[in-house]
């Protein structure tokens, strides 16, 4: 008895045959177990308890163990195990806490042999001793494990885990006396069956419940555990401290784990929730499953290898009420489908690219990357391990460094910085942005802005019709020369330009009274996009006028506009601080700010009439009075979508903001939200915090504006008692002292508090500003030379 003879039937794989097959059960299965000679399988669940014979082509129901008119809860099985020595002996764990043994050799219909009702809670697991016929172990929700001698009426020993519910118990395959138990609190305990007073060893294996464990069939010291934390860990138990030697991260909590027979490194897992597949892992390659079985439609609840020396057959039962036999050769191999190429951008625009070696070497000779500079290809070699059945792929890693000039994102950053999105009349914003785009060599965008200005600059109330623009067709040569001059670079550089022009042309075409005729004309234009020449001439006049005008205007205003830009960035931020003003202080605050703001506006105001006047006077003849701005909305919408699809979400968002209410209703909220989030994400990646904040502020989507509300809480401690001030920012609930007093007026500051970072004195923004105008010393009298900038 000491030295166990290994019970080997030495069954060659030749004697088992079959194919991938399944059968429908009547009810969801909770567990399955197979008899020793691999010819029969028992399926147990809440409403099912049946034995199926495994035949060549199909499962055949052999026996229904669920008998009686009103089956009791003893039939409601959480687990089942077929004895590996005695082929007539089965044990089940019932959800009501009963442990039942069944003797198939009984002549009566009811095969129930013994009933143990010693556990108070659900029994999660039963386990027969691998070599001892009469020894049965059970683990229950009540935290106890019990060992039964089947010749006796009750348990022979009880093991108390002293921690929470037992989820799994497993006799060691090699150590006669040892068994492992896994617990809901993440612990695994090792017990000696002869010593029920305390465990031999305990260690924490997982965070959260350990749902399963399995001893390695060959290696004495290895124990695999699976837990709710989605990990499978392999522990070496031969050393003093259990040592984690492998760890596989799966995508869902691990319900069962079973070592694959005859394959030292392989184990099969299935999950408890969400994921329905069965995975076979090579523990040395933890990042990709070795094989996957994807047949089940609901979670797999039981897996078992059909024969303990045959690695090719896997049986599984599932909540979807099916029982499967999987052939290993039919498994899908994720590694075959995996993409051995990888691509990643570095922080400074460098590009790393890993690919199969063969691919790279071929590439190198062709020199296919004119843009990048291929510097150092690195080759990694992993020593091939003959026992690993994984496909070996060696990859080459190349890093491409981008030259400084070719930073393609430059224009985006600059544009983001320079665009004006608010704070000025619509027309000016458009002009400004058009100019920015033009300076950055993006004539198409520039033109779009100009177009937008023309379309939406409210000319509708002017009644003079402008039927004369057809007549302007005559001035072709002039136009031609102009556009070449002004937009030379653009026409050459950007092919897309033509398309957008086509769209803008379309708008203008609609102005014509003979709509149908022009439409057909227009269609032709769309189809023959390449031959843009004609159409260009037709409406070039509009461009001529505008460009003429604006080139002039911009030169005039360039200097002034620079001046606006700076204060605009510096000041609006203050207004965003909303402190739930309940005190009049805030009003003062506003006043304090207002000189700047109003000064700004004053300048704008005095400019506006001039600007808009000139505008209107020019664009007046272009529009017939019965065409309101809404008329263009569909076209503008298409344009925005076009830009967004081209990847220039910046343009889409900027136009959206600048046009505001004029276009907002045309585009559905989700799309807008999508654009905003993409743009904001982009800006934040580029660390353009100010711009992103401005965009958030100006957006009209509630989902976006509330981004500004997240993590805006400032926790303040009282300067007196150093406790957190929970209620208001200026008075402490505990010591009833006002925390922040203005150094100038000695009143409490309830709104903005500005303080010197040198001496940490401060007060009302307005007061401190005034004070420091006349004095350079700190108002508190500390002698520090404060500065307000």
């Amino acid at each position: 008895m000491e030295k166990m003879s290994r019970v080997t039937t030495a069954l060659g794989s030749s004697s088992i045959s079959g194919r991938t097959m399944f059968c429908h059960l009547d009810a969801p299965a909770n567990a399955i177990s197979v008899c020793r000679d691999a010819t029969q399988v028992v399926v147990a669940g809440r409403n099912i308890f049946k034995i199926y014979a495994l035949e060549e082509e199909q499962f055949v129901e052999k026996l229904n163990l669920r008998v009686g008119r009103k089956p009791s809860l003893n039939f409601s099985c959480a687990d089942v195990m077929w004895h590996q020595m005695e082929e007539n002996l089965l044990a089940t764990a019932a959800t009501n806490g009963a442990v039942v043994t069944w003797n198939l050799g009984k002549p009566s219909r009811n095969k129930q042999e013994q009933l143990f009702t010693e556990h108070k809670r659900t029994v999660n697991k039963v386990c027969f001793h691998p070599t001892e016929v009469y020894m049965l172990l059970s683990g229950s929700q009540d935290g106890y494990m019990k060992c039964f001698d089947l010749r006796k009426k009750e348990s022979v020993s009880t093991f108390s885990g002293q921690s929470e519910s037992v989820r799994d118990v497993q006799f060691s395959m090699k150590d006669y006396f040892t068994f492992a138990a896994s617990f809901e609190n993440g612990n695994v305990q090792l017990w000696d069956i002869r010593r029920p007073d305390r465990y031999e060893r305990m260690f924490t294996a997982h965070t959260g419940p350990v749902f399963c464990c399995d001893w390695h069939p060959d290696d004495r010291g290895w124990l695999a555990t699976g837990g709710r934390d989605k990990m499978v860990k392999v522990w070496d138990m031969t050393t003093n401290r259990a040592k984690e030697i492998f760890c596989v991260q799966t995508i869902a909590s691990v319900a069962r784990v079973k070592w694959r027979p005859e394959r030292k490194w392989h184990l099969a897992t299935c999950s408890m929730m969400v994921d329905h597949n069965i995975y076979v892992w090579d523990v040395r390659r933890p990042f990709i499953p070795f094989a996957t079985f994807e047949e089940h439609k609901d979670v797999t609840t039981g897996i078992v290898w059909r024969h303990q020396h045959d690695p090719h057959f896997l049986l599984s039962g599932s909540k979807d009420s099916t029982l499967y036999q999987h052939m290993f050769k039919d498994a899908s191999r994720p590694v075959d489908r995996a993409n051995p190429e990888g691509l990643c951008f570095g922080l400074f625009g460098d590009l790393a690219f890993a690919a199969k070696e063969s691919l790279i070497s071929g590439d190198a000779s062709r020199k296919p990357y004119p843009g990048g500079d291929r510097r150092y290809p690195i080759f990694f070699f992993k020593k091939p391990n003959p026992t690993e059945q994984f496909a070996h792929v060696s990859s080459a890693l190349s890093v491409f460094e981008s030259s400084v000039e070719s930073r393609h994102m430059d224009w985006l950053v600059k544009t983001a910085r320079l665009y004006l999105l608010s704070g000025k009349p619509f027309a000016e914003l458009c002009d400004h942005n058009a100019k920015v785009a033009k300076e950055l060599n993006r004539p198409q965008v520039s033109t779009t802005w100009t177009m937008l200005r023309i379309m939406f600059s409210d000319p509708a109330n002017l009644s003079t019709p402008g039927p004369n623009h057809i007549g302007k067709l005559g001035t072709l040569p002039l136009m031609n020369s102009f556009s070449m001059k002004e937009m030379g670079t653009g026409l050459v550089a950007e092919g897309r330009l033509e398309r957008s022009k086509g769209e803008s042309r379309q708008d203008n075409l609609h102005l014509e009274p003979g709509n149908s005729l022009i439409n057909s004309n227009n269609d032709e234009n769309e189809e023959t996009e390449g031959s843009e020449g004609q159409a260009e001439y037709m409406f070039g006049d509009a461009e001529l006028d505008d460009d003429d005008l604006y080139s002039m205007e911009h030169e005039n205003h360039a200097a002034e506009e620079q001046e606006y830009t700076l204060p605009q960035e510096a000041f609006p931020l203050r207004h965003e601080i909303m402190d739930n003003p309940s005190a009049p202080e805030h009003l003062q605050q506003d006043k304090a700010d207002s000189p700047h703001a109003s000064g700004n506006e004053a300048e704008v105001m005095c400019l506006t009439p001039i600007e808009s006047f000139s505008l209107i006077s020019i664009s007046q003849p272009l529009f017939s009075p019965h065409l309101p701005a809404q008329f263009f909305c569909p076209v503008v919408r298409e344009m925005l979508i076009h830009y967004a699809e081209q990847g220039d979400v910046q343009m889409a968002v900027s136009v959206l903001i600048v046009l505001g209410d004029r276009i907002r209703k045309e585009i559905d909220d989700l799309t807008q939200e999508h654009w905003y989030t993409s743009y904001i994400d982009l800006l934040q990646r580029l660390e353009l915090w100010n711009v992103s904040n401005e965009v958030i502020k100006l957006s009209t989507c509630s989902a976006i504006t509330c981004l500004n509300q997240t993590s805006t809480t400032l926790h303040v401690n009282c300067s007196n008692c150093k406790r957190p001030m929970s209620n208001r920012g200026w008075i402490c609930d505990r010591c009833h002292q006002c925390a922040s007093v203005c150094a100038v007026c000695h009143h409490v500051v309830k709104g903005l508090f500005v303080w010197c970072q040198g001496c940490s004195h401060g007060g009302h923004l307005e007061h401190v500003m005034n004070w420091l105008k006349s004095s350079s010393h700190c108002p508190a009298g500390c002698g520090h030379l404060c500065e307000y900038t």
Partner: protein
Amino acid sequence: MSVTADFSPKPFHFCNICQKVIRKKEKGVSVQRPFSSGPSAFIPEDEVVEASQVDPQTEQLLAEAYSPSGCVDHLTQVMGLHPHYLESFLRSQFYLLRMDGPLPLHCRHYIAIMAAARHQCSFLVSLHVREFYRMGVCLDWLKGLQYAPQRLRNLNEINKILAHRPWLITKEHIQNLVKTGEHSWSLAELVHAVVLLAHFHALASFVFGSGINPQVDAQNANAFQPVYISNCYGCPSSTSPGATDSVSELEALMDRMKRLQEDREEDEASQEEMATRFEKEKKESLLVGSGDFEDEVMPTSRGSRFVEDATFGYQDFARHGEDNPPTFRAQDYSWEDHGFSLVNRLYSDIGLLLDDKFRTACDLTYYSLASHEDVDTTMLRRALFNYVHCMYGIRYDDYDYGEVNQLLERSLKVYIKTVTCYPERTTRRMYDSYWRQFHHSEKVHVNLLLMEARMQAELLYALRAITRYMT
């Protein structure tokens, strides 16, 4: 019936906290108050305050509570009787409302308002209306549910089902919310919303069950009528007519617990018997309490504008002569195995926090029962927890529902049923009428158990529906 021979005649032989209370009263402070000033209408103020002063850990925790109203609100004060639990409660609530999650902050508070309004819990409604104001966005939603976006209004359907009859929720409900469209929810958002709903439904139970007083203006907005002032604080004075009765009640309960523990092996009930016991308990829960309130009270509180279909109320799980929905088997869909995995997958980390909260609530014990020390109360706690689940049609195979019958007296059952199923009807009389010789902190403990059991039941039904939708 056991005898009270070993009882000393002292009126203050109870625990530390109680002794203090009683001694104070004897000095002449004993006045019959409606407790409108303290945190709870049911519990004398000094008891709550004293507890928080006694325990330094509590105070620190309360300080961390950082509630919007400036001071530690009444709810936190009452819950502070169990500081260990309070900590995990606050941690999960903070995570739900403030930390990163799929839903924007103001929506979370709005969902909280919707959930609390279902039970006309003006305490929670006004608390979160205030919070919502602080967010400063979409303030017009506060005018009523019809001003909220369609997406939130769609949530109303599962809100009302979860609040009153969670067993009716199906995967079709989930499908309707998640299916692609203009107002669709992502699964992560939905899980967040469901957890919020369950949390605040359960919290409403706690608020009513412990008679939390409204924060600012007492009386007018509250649903409690100060009529129910009994002359019993929970600690029986010598003049109390029911004193001996209640003492023997306690003794009887202790006795029954002991007997149940001992007799467990011998009491070999057949399986059919066990099943019948569950059914019986389920059926009996119908008769408990519900009869008095046949007429449906239309809500008039300030929360009513956040309620649509206000007449949808609780109906018993097991109704006579109707097709009952199938019993929910706890072993087939448990929080530990299934619920946790799903929640944590879709809304990371909340599973851990909720797990911690459930565990703390279930394991919380001081090994004492009223005046008795060294008592294993596991049975009693389990009976309370499972009785709530039983009313919601969740059955544990491994539980003998006969225990419920033996351990929970009728007045307690009435209280449990009211607090979990229609908390707005809870009265001081109900609170006072059960376990008269127990401490208030123990009754709060009962409330905590009821709250967590209810929340878990709602979550289990909702998450099972989501799982079914996903598979």
